[in-house]
Structures are given as structure tokens and as C-alpha cells.
């Protein structure tokens, strides 16, 4: 028998750094969707309000933001109705933050499955990004209903053709969240410090993103330091969303190109480290 031909696999100490087996992940797509289903079905079991929680959280956050930042601090909202202004920011930020936080726990939370059976580890973080899209979708529908209400009331909003950018912007957020998340999850297997960093880091990161204030205000107040706000890859995405759906904001193709590049580099670094760590993390977790 020819030894090479029917050899299924060779397990050796080290894989090549960039040897990411995408075909294998594709073979496990059934598992991917079962994980998505599990996340979705199991989350709100044994809660009274069930999936209503998907709505409660953004509504209350919007309410608080409107009172605190809109009324008390009087931060301008580009002339937009504050409810819509905050809600679109919160909905998008929630998606990004959820991708990041949940994927950043991948190795530690699943170490008992990972210790027993092999499947391409990337399946899990990818499934999280997908199941979070469902949650985003539900919250987005909520936003759209508010949008329609305000539109009928005659508020100064102009949704435009750029809403077609939504899938692309979503992809950018998913990529950023996933990239950050798996990079951090690779580090936490050995050094748990990053877990603590993530917890408040995401919160601080939100204030560095134009969610409770418009980018125009940041630029005006920061002057020559305004590049800090722009350097944040989430800034251009949030601003583009605001422009597309509400008509105010800054849709800047250069900024978006920067975010895309940032996402690609980050995702690449994330996948490579994840790939390296997944081989022996069971020994160090």
C-alpha cells in the first residue's frame, strides 16, 4: 500500500504558524450552527421575560443616556432626536462589545469541552459572532420602529441610500470584535490579567467612541488632538451608521478604509495567535 496516499493525518509537535485550516472549519459548519442555536435557545430559558430582555436593555440604556448626557450634561446630538442618536450608537456598540467580551473567554469557558474532544477551535468564537448578529437584529428592529415613529412625527432625519452599507459595517464590527476577542482569549489562557483588563477596558473604549457625543463635537473640542478620536477604528463605523440612517454624521471613505485595514490586520493577528495557542493551551489553561 502506498503510505503517502491514504495517510489521513500526521500529528506532530508544531504546526506552521499560518497553517489555518479553513476547509476544516467549513466541514464543521453543522456544529457552528448548532452552537448558534444553543446560544440562542439556552440564554433565556428559565427567565420570566424571556427574549424581551433583548429589548429591555437597549431601551433603558437609551433612557439613561438621554437623561444623563442629553439633559444633565447637555451634550449636543448633531440636531438629531436624542433617543435615535443614542439608540443607534448603543445598538452597534452592544454588538461589537458582545463579540469582543464573549469571544475573549473562549478558551477558559470551554476548557472542559476542549479538553475532551477535538474540533476546530475557531468554530466557537465564530458561532458567538453569528449568534450575536441575531441579537443585534432584534435590537435593530427596535431602532427601526423608533426611526419610523420619529419620521412620521416629522423629525429632522434623512435616511439615505447609504443604509445599503449596513452589511459591510456589520462585517467590520464583527471582524473587529472577533479579532480583539480571540487575541485576548489567547493571552488569557496563560495570563489571567487580561480578563480584568477587558471588563473595564470595553467600558472605557465606549467613551472613546462617538456614541454619547457626535464626532463633530470631538473634533471641535479636541482641536489638533482630534486624530485620537479618528484613530479609533469604531469611530468611522458608528459615524457612517448615523449618517446612513439619520442623515447627520460623518461618512468618510478614508476613515472607513482605515477601519477596514485595521480590522483585517487585527483579525489576522488574532487568528494566528489563536491558532498557535489552541495547540497546547490545555497544558497551561
Amino acid at each position, binding site marked *: 500500500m502506498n503510505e503517502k496516499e491514504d495517510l489521513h493525518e500526521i500529528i506532530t509537535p508544531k504546526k506552521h504558524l499560518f497553517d489555518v485550516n479553513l476547509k476544516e472549519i467549513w466541514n464543521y459548519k453543522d456544529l457552528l450552527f448548532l452552537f448558534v442555536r444553543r446560544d440562542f435557545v439556552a440564554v433565556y430559558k428559565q427567565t420570566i421575560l424571556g427574549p424581551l430582555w433583548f429589548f429591555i436593555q437597549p431601551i433603558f440604556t437609551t433612557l439613561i443616556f438621554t437623561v444623563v448626557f442629553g439633559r444633565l450634561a447637555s451634550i449636543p446630538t448633531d440636531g438629531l432626536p436624542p433617543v435615535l442618536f443614542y439608540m443607534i450608537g448603543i445598538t452597534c456598540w452592544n454588538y461589537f462589545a458582545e463579540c469582543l467580551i464573549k469571544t475573549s473567554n473562549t478558551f477558559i469557558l470551554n476548557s472542559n469541552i476542549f479538553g475532551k474532544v477535538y474540533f476546530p477551535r475557531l468554530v466557537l468564537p465564530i458561532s458567538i459572532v453569528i449568534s450575536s448578529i441575531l441579537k443585534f437584529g432584534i435590537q435593530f428592529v427596535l431602532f427601526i420602529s423608533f426611526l419610523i415613529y420619529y419620521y412620521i412625527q416629522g423629525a429632522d432625519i434623512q435616511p439615505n441610500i447609504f443604509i445599503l452599507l449596513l452589511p459591510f459595517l456589520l462585517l467590520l464590527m464583527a471582524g473587529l470584535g472577533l479579532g480583539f476577542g480571540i487575541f485576548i482569549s489567547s493571552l488569557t489562557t496563560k495570563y489571567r490579567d487580561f480578563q480584568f483588563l477587558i471588563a473595564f477596558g470595553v467600558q472605557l473604549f465606549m467613551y472613546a467612541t462617538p456614541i454619547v457625543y457626535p464626532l463633530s463635537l470631538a473634533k471641535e473640542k479636541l482641536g489638533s488632538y482630534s486624530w485620537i478620536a479618528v484613530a479609533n477604528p469604531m469611530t468611522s463605523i458608528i459615524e457612517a451608521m448615523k449618517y446612513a440612517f439619520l442623515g447627520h454624521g460623518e461618512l468618510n471613505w478614508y476613515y472607513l478604509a482605515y477601519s477596514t485595514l485595521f480590522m483585517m490586520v487585527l483579525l489576522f493577528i488574532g487568528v494566528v495567535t489563536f491558532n498557535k495557542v489552541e495547540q*497546547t493551551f490545555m497544558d497551561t489553561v
Partner: protein
Amino acid sequence: MSWMIKIEDVSKMYRLGLVSSGTLQDDFKRAWYKFKGKEDPFLKIGEENKRDTAGSDYVWALKDINFEVKKGEILGIIGKNGAGKSTLLKLLSKVTKPSTGSIKTRGRIASLLEVGTGFHPELTGRENIFLNGAILGMKKSEIKSKFDEIVDFSGCERYIDTPVKRYSSGMYVRLAFAVAAHLEPEILVVDEVLAVGDAEFQKKAIGKMKDVSQGQGRTVLFVSHNMGSIKSLCSKSILMKNGTITKYGKTDEVINTYLNDSSSNSIVPLNERDDRKGSGKLIAESIKLYNSNNIETSEFIPGERMKLIFKLNGNLESGKFLFNVIFTNNFGSAVAMFRSDEINPNLELNTEKIISIEIPKLNLRPEHYNISYYIANNSFSSENFYDSLENCVSFEVLNFDYFKSGKMIKNGNFGLINANIHS
């Protein structure tokens, strides 16, 4: 026939102790050596995996493992805890990577390291079958086509739409094993799953494993502490000790080597045993066995009188205590038990502190047996133990013409009952 798995020079090193203390320094050192093109400095100081002796912080859980498994073969892997069996299976199932060497396989490997992996308590039995099947590497369509078979095998039809958190532990395990048993990989790796479930289910599970290898020509690697199931399933076995393979060959021979090795414990004098359990208030200092002629021995003829003399040491306020002696065979199954509360409920500690158990007729078939004892306060639960030792002494029952028919009786590791046969 050709090999399905070929393992060449595989070793696995583990780092002991707290991974997070002081290891960043080691990591930098490693990186520095790697940068200079030298070998990993910590790989050199690894040593054999002996759990009870202190050594360097790096041990070889596996060292230079070489073997191959042929198509359709069920290979048993036996060894004490810590011998490296589970590490080997982990490498095979790609949970972690070897430190050196390579493993070549022909065909898909599925592993059953612990049943129920990935079961989600909130999901129903049905949902978990799909999820667990997919985790183990099955396609959705595969699971769908086997769904009825799986449910049938598990015997959980009635509860299939109930969340598994409401299942009894037995049902949970049965369902999980049923999913795993219906995997169709070319190579199946199994660790101890048969230790669960009732006797009927175990029989079913062993039958299924036999089917898989003989009927469907698939290869199975099977780790167990249960010599009975190893014997009934595997034609060839491997004996592991401290991370190395000490014997590879026919299952019977390997099991014998293992048992001889493990019962060598009993040669250790009683006062040097360090695995006693109990408070130590009343302990057994020595145990002696006497035959019909009152001669101390460890060899007996079936049917003769046996006398066990235990010399105890310690003090009790009330003088009352319980005493239990169990005879076990090579497989660790009990063949006889003598409880003081059944035989003599008023047993008290006398001034000589000696207990003797007299067995008028030792009705056991020729084989090797071990004796375990338990001394307890007022019930045989472990928190009430004064002292206990498993396999503290062993004895041999010799071949003999028990029935006086002119024929020696056959060996066997169970009781021998006198009888007559007429026509």
C-alpha cells in the same frame, strides 16, 4: 493487515506546580534560547513521571512511545493511575500536541474521553443529541439518519423532549454513550466509559464495541481499569508505567504482568503501608494466615480450614467495634465477606487485642486472592473508619481433587460449592 495508527517516538512534557508563578521568566528564557538557536533549556531536565517523589518541575508524562495499531484491532491500554494512559489518548484525539515525535493515522479519529461532553443542561435530549453528535464530528444529516437508533439504544424515548438537567445521572450517561456509540469513525478512542451504567447497559455497550471492531472492521483503542472488560474486548494490550510502555503483547499476558506488578503491594509489610484509611484509633499491626495444621502459610487447598489472626493495636473507651474482612479476586471483585456485626454482634476488644476468623471450609477455586479489612466505629462508612487497608495480604488456592473424583478441579476466581451429580 496495514496499520491504522502509527506512533513514533512520542513524548509529552508537562510543567508542574503553579503555571503562573515565575513562569514568565522561564518563558523569556525559552524565547532567548530559541532566539540564539539553542534547544529548549527546560526540556532537558524532564524526568520519568513518578508522582510520589519530588523532582524537577518538568516531567515527562509520556516518554518515547512507539507502537502501531492494525485495522479492526481493539487495543487495550492498562496501567495504574498516572501511567500516562489518558495523556496518550489526549494526544491521539488532538486535544493537545505531543512535545516530540509524530502520530500518523489513516482515517478519522473520534474520541470518547468522557461521555456527555458538551451536553447543555438547559437543552432537551433531542437537541443535545444533535449538539453532542456535531461536537464529536458528525454531520447533521448523519445524526438525523441515526436519530431513532440512538434514542432506542439509550432507552430514553419518553424523556427525549425534556431538558437533560432533569435526567437521572444514569439516563444522562446512557444518552451520551448512545450518541458516541453511533459515531462512525475509522478509529475510535475510548476511555473508561464502560465504568458507568448498570450491568445490562454495560453489556450492551461492550457488545456495541465488539460490533464496531469485528463487524465493521474499525479500530478501537480502549483504556480501562476493569480487567474484565479489557479481557473480553481486546486481543492485544499495552501496559504502561510512568509514561513508558513496559509490555506489549497478548492481552492475557499483559494483564498477568500488570496484576503481578500491582499485587506486589502485598509484599510490603503492614507497618510500612502508607495507604491506610481511617482515624488510626485502632489499627491492625499484623495479619497471619494458618491452614488446617495450624501452620502459617499463604497457600491453601480448596475445602480446608483457614484461620486468619489479626493483631490489633490501640485503645477504645467502650471496647466495642466493627470488623469486616473481604476476599477479592484478581479483578478486584469481592468473592466473600465476613462482617463481625453479622457473625458476632457483641465483638469487643480483648486484652490481647487479637481477633481470629475461622473459616471451616475454604470453598474457593484455585486462583490468587487478596484480603482487605475494615475496622470501624459503629457503621462501615468511611468517616467511621478506625483503620482499613485494601489488599493487605494475599493467598493462593492450589489445584486439588476437591470432589474426590480423581480429577483436579479447574481454576477460577470464584467460589466452589460442593455437589453430587447422579444419573
